[in-house]
């Protein structure tokens, strides 16, 4: 991936992620999240992970965001009214975040291996989906089955939670 494209998509991802946090209106936040996920999918394409990029768009930008928007609409949430902000809590949250970013910066300065460029792939066009599928169904077959059970449990849980009366 050319550096210019990387910077464009990284900026897109980060700017709209900030918009998610900064927006007062939940609908605007949800739509910013879609754009942020699309930027992330573009970064995945740049890392030659085409399958993950497509899954990211389908599952996150598609299914998950429709669910979020549906719930926001269902609950009829308006833009938050301004409340008295809890100054110590805000200061602590901001401080921990800034400390995390500073720590990240210093760790990455010392991480020499990460300063080498990405090695080129053996082939120009990798058969991405087939390779991921092979790994998924051979090496990681048991976890895959377990994930199926997890989805079933989640579905039953959602149905139980959504019943009118919780006894």
């Amino acid at each position: 991936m050319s550096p210019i494209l990387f910077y464009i998509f990284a900026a897109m991802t980060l700017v709209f992620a900030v918009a998610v946090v900064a927006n007062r209106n939940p609908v605007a936040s949800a739509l910013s999240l879609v754009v942020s996920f699309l930027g992330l999918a573009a970064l995945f394409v740049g890392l030659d992970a085409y399958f993950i990029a497509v899954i990211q768009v389908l599952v996150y930008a598609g299914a998950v965001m429709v669910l979020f928007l549906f719930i926001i609409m269902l609950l009829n949430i308006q833009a938050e009214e301004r409340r008295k902000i809890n100054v110590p809590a805000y200061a602590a949250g901001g401080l921990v975040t800034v400390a995390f970013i500073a720590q990240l910066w210093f760790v990455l300065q010392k991480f020499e291996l990460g300063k080498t460029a990405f090695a080129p792939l053996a082939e120009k066009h990798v058969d991405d989906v087939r390779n991921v599928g092979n790994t998924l169904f051979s090496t990681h077959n048991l976890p895959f089955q377990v994930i199926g059970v997890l989805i079933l449990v989640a579905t039953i849980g959602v149905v139980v939670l959504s019943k009118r009366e919780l006894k």
Partner: protein
Amino acid sequence: MTLTLNHYLFVSGLLFAIGFAGVMLRRNIIIIFMCLELMLNAANLSLVAFSRFNLVNGLPNYNAQVLVFFIITVAAAEVAVGLAIIVALFRARQTTHVEDINSLKF
């Protein structure tokens, strides 16, 4: 100038920090939930970057991409359950503001 692994790791860390800041600073439970998704995606980005960096026979390490696939699946299940809980909570309390939901607070 060429792209290095550190570029991707820094973007991933910043994305995680933004999500974390959202969880700490926002008081709307739906926004907090969206910020959790941001943090999961930050982890995915560093996994994919490492997968591309550690080549196996000239191909990306697909174990990491399978792990990302699992994370996305679990995140989708988590969103479904979490939003069901939020709807149940809204029915009981008519609010999505976390400071109004404090029955379990010590």
